[in-house]
């Protein structure tokens, strides 16, 4: 697959002396792929987006869009000429323009008829046909964010960037919008990069997930890979609980508690049991691992589980 966007050795430092927000980063995004970028706050996610769309200039490194250099030494394409769309965290809808005017704002070169048609198509896509004459303040939170997405899609950008597009929404709305946006992006076959600090969003929407730490990419892979086979403690912990087993990290749900020995299982002692509603949260201490550690695993309540009683733990295949 050819990559639409290519970043080579990109760095950006805001204040001299402080660690760089983005640090010698390399990244390639193939055509039609949705890449989800996750990381703790301050890991450089937003800066990376701003660098890609041209709201910031990289200190070093080069950026290519469809093989054409758009930022680097002696070359600079301003944001308005890049053909890269951005969905802002707060939507950044123009409050003095109607839905229709907001969308057509990016369609400068088209004639009236074309614009109307495109607006209608896009609004149908998000189930908002008939909203043309409304103002942003007359829309609900979810509608506003949908409008922000179609506004960015209207000029048919080569790459669409989404900066925490669901962060201002309540959980129920968030889940609905998440699958909607995934559907839309796939329907229009856009290459997209979505920044989020919500790992669930990342795993749901991304074809690939990249984990960012201190301005560098820690791990990149399919949602399954990054979730079940984290390569570092940081990538492991970002998606929730993880148990260190030698050099690997294993998810609690990838461990199985057994009351009888099977081959390749570890003998353990139950230290703590906590009823978490949908399952029991069990802390065990493996007897054959030194130095001594505790593992956490989930179990649908079975009779043998009591504090102080022995058992065996086996790893499921996913984690291997």
């Amino acid at each position: 697959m050819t990559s639409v966007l290519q970043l080579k050795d990109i760095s950006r430092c805001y204040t001299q002396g402080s660690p760089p927000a983005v640090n010698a980063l390399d990244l390639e995004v193939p055509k039609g792929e949705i890449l989800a970028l996750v990381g703790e706050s301050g890991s450089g996610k937003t800066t990376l987006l701003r660098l890609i769309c041209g709201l910031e200039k990289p200190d070093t490194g080069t950026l290519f869009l469809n093989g054409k250099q758009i930022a680097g030494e002696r070359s600079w394409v301003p944001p308005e000429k890049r053909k890269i769309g951005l969905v802002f965290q707060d939507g950044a809808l123009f409050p003095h323009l109607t839905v229709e005017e907001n969308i057509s704002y990016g369609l400068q070169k088209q004639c009236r008829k074309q614009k109307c048609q495109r607006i209608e198509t896009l609004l149908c896509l998000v189930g908002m046909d008939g909203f043309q004459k409304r103002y942003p303040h007359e829309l609900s939170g979810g509608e506003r964010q949908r409008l922000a997405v179609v506004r960015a899609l209207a000029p048919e950008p080569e790459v669409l960037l989404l900066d925490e597009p669901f962060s201002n929404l309540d959980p129920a709305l968030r889940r609905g919008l998440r699958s909607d946006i995934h559907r839309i992006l796939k329907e229009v076959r856009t290459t997209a990069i979505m920044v989020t600090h919500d790992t669930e969003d990342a795993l749901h929407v991304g074809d690939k997930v990249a984990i960012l730490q201190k301005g560098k990419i820690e791990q990149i892979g399919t949602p399954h890979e990054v979730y079940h086979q984290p390569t570092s403690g940081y990538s492991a912990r970002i998606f929730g609980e993880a148990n260190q087993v030698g050099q690997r990290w294993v998810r609690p749900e990838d461990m199985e508690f057994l009351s009888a020995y099977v081959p390749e299982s570890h003998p353990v002692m139950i230290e703590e049991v906590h009823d978490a509603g949908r399952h029991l949260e069990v802390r065990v201490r493996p007897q054959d691992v030194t130095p001594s550690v505790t593992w956490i695993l989930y179990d649908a309540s079975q009779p043998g589980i009591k504090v102080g009683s022995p058992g065996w733990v086996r790893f499921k295949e996913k984690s291997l």
Partner: protein
Amino acid sequence: MWNHLRETVLTSYFLNTLWLSTAVALLSILMAVPSAWFVSHFDFPGRRFFEWGMVLPLAVPTYVAAFVYRQVPESAIPLLIHIRSTYGVDAYLFTEGFIRKGILALFMAGVLFPYLYLSLRATFLVQRRGLIEAAQLLGRSPSSVFFTIALPLARPALIAGISLILMEVINDYGAVIFMGVPTLTVGIFRTWTGLGDLTSAVRLAGLMMLGIFVLLWLEHHQRGRANFAETSASTAPHLHRKLSRAKGIGAFILCLVPISIGFIIPLVQLLNWAWISLLQKRIQFPWERMVHSLTLALGTAVILTLLSVILVYAERLHPVRWLRQPIRLASLGYAVPGAVVAVGVMTFLGKTQHLTGNVFLIGSIYAIGFGYIVRFLAVGLQPIRAGMERVCGSLDAASRILGHSPAQTLWHINLPLIRGTLLAVTMLVFVDILKELPMTMILRPVDFDTLATLSFGLAQESRIHECAVPSLMIIFLAGLGVFGLNRMLLPSTSHPKP
């Protein structure tokens, strides 16, 4: 000459300035704080009028108030005669000076307190209702809530408002001359025009700037005029608690007293004088001067607003040091008294005359316009900068990404969104220039009078009845500006609509 100044009048200039600043600041607090609090939080007879009426004194220039109040000390003459015959000359001089300075401080506070009122009201209105309600639910009485929550939170607004008032006091020329309380500004004028000594005038100005830098530092650290030129976008509608009858009357009086001192009494007296001169058939309407004033004030206000927009937008596009520092420096003009700016402009134009040819000829109308812009640029820059930051957020970035150039973005996004702030700024500058006296007097062309210089000149010649008409014209025009400004500053709960 400098030594002579230092030995003779410098101390009294300095002490007068210090005394007047302190007294006006304290009196302004007494006038503005209770009225702003009651108007923002309680319902009482006349609240709707006071809400905007409290700003009207801004339309009255200090020198016009001085014409009116000059006669008050005269009514104390019987008392003064009694003191002189009973306690001697020293007691007489002390009492006379005290009454004169007291009256001066009182009416100056009366016309200047709205600066503080506006900045406080803006703050009281956006203070989160939740905080006040939380304090009430924790068992605090309204007065206790005020002293423990609302006032401490409003401290930045308090300091910003007071420093604006102090700058006006220090800058004042007309009122202090009339009341015979020479301050440093008067000193600069006298040294320069009377003694013809520019060097000593510049030294005096330098001394004065030192004091002002302290104020400026305070203001800079507590946010500036931006406080009240902001239209607050959307705040929860405020609930006005109804006051009992007795307390309502108390609140009414607390609001009525300052607005009477600063607006109603001067207005009634001027109308009375105008009536007298009408009866004496000596009334004249200085239409030509009005055209001068309007052209200068409106023209400069529009140019200044445009210039501010360009500078702020440039700074926004390229947030770099070499652009930011000069713009910050340009906003210092507001802290510099008009007389000092005038000296600077004269010197600058004199030095660059060979470059600009006759366009910016000293004593031309362009020179005054230039001076006004130097002095009032900050009035435009600060609110427009605050407005763009508050309203535009990431919107202009969004526009750039959707393929519009910086200029197109400014035109389609930024300007329509900060329209309210732009109008407010234009009116604020309009009112300021309409009232401005010291700089206009120095920089105006020969035989060129504005309403301000005309009424001041007539009053100086003691043609007090005749100066009523131009004074009323200033108040009327500035009042229109203040009224419009106030409409724009009143927070609305509706969303922006095109």
